[in-house]
């Protein structure tokens, strides 16, 4: 118990950094992912090709390697980023690759009759997307996107290798200080679990609300 009291401020800071990494990367990754999804379904071959390449690269390589390239590799090219921005950049790109596929699935999951009904009343493409397709695509994509958010929360743990003092790094230093590794990692593991349980509950509530809008 002593150990908990001593490390409490450190723990709180670590929790803050973990949440910061997860939430900011999710928001940035969603924005970028939406653009990639639109590029992926656009009529322009070059855009489609670029989107396919982006997704392939960032899903096909380990997140750990991406983080290391950004933090340790980019300085060779004269781009030096602090640990936290490096981690956020890597996590955002990685999340965007996966989220773009979730969004694309949501958009393609909307019945093609919806596009036809909208164009049959003379609605232009972008307005159809915004008013008719997007609200339905969000609903279809929500479960997968929620799952991706939870996965991202756990992936923030890899930021510890580039010296970001988030929860995992805090667990290591608590363990190093008194060699009670078991307690330290169990406690941190429980914290991740708690965060993600709350996220799951939130997702469930959101899905129910989106469902209500249809009835």
């Amino acid at each position, binding site marked *: 118990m002593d150990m908990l009291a001593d490390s409490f401020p450190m723990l709180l800071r670590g929790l803050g950094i973990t949440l910061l990494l997860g939430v900011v990367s999710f928001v940035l990754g969603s924005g970028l992912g939406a653009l990639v999804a639109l590029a992926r379904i656009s009529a322009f071959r070059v855009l489609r090709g670029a989107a396919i390449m982006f997704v392939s690269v960032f899903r096909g390589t380990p997140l750990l390697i991406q983080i290391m390239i950004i933090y340790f590799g980019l300085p060779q090219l004269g781009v030096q980023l602090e640990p936290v921005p490096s981690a956020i950049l890597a996590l955002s790109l990685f999340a965007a690759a996966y989220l773009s596929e979730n969004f694309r699935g949501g958009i393609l999951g909307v019945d093609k*009759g*919806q596009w036809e*009904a909208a164009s049959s*009343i003379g609605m232009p493409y972008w307005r159809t997307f915004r*008013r008719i397709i997007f609200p339905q695509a969000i609903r279809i994509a929500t479960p997968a996107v929620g799952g991706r958010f939870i996965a991202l929360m756990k992936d923030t743990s890899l930021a510890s290798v580039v010296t970001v003092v988030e929860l995992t790094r805090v667990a290591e230093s608590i363990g190093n200080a008194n060699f009670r590794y078991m307690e330290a990692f169990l406690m941190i593991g429980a914290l991740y679990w708690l965060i993600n349980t709350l996220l799951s509950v939130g997702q469930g509530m959101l899905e129910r609300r989106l469902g209500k809008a*249809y009835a």
Partner: protein
Amino acid sequence: MTKPPIELTGIRKAFGALEVLRGVDLSVERGEVVVLMGPSGSGKTTLVRCMNLLEEPDSGHVRICDCAFSCGTRSDRRGRARLMQRARQQTGMVFQQFNLFPHMTALGNVIEGPRQVRNLPMAEAVALGERLLDRVGLVDKRDVHPSRLSGGQKQRVAIARALAMEPEVVLFDEPTSALDPELHAEVLEVIQELAGDGMTMVIVTHETHFAREVADRIVFMDGGVVVEEATAEAFFTRPSKERVRTFLRLVDHSGALVDAPAPRVGEEAV
């Protein structure tokens, strides 16, 4: 003399190697009700979809009110898109599967076009929407989402949505085919009333009774061409083509198309 609101000439359309429309000429006069009939796969759906350019013919000319298209020429994509939007605002379409917007109420569905495309002010759009919902007998369902409506009610909302654009022509592709038989009448009645009000309509249907009552002209298609065109009376009582006679025998009296007629014993020779 005013020009017919819809005029198709030499329409051809293939999906890959499959030639679905092989040179169709058809015009629809103002106030006329044309019923399209024909066996499955004869190109009826494809043809009505050409009438609002949801399907673009490979070649031929399409004129929809004041918008004229020469198909098969690759020119000026933007101008074309704008012209298409204008053409579609002048034609309403009612789909077999309704295609209502599930995230909007009945009224929301009806006023979406007036608000977003015709840019009517809210109050005016709502008044129009309520008037149209009343016309299809559903004004009490204005705040209900499509998931809470029966199939017949959904289709009536879809008709109101098409009318909300105040189109010159309304196109129907098998408006009752997705409905249980006991729900057909409520939809057909609405269409019949529109015909009574002088609305120009093109209707694909297998309902022979209804076709006979509502149609000014019946156009029979087979294999991607128009095989016979006649008044409803002539079409049903003295069809001139053997192909039409065979078809009418396969369509039973309730109007349901028998897709694969099982030859009954002793009847094979018919």
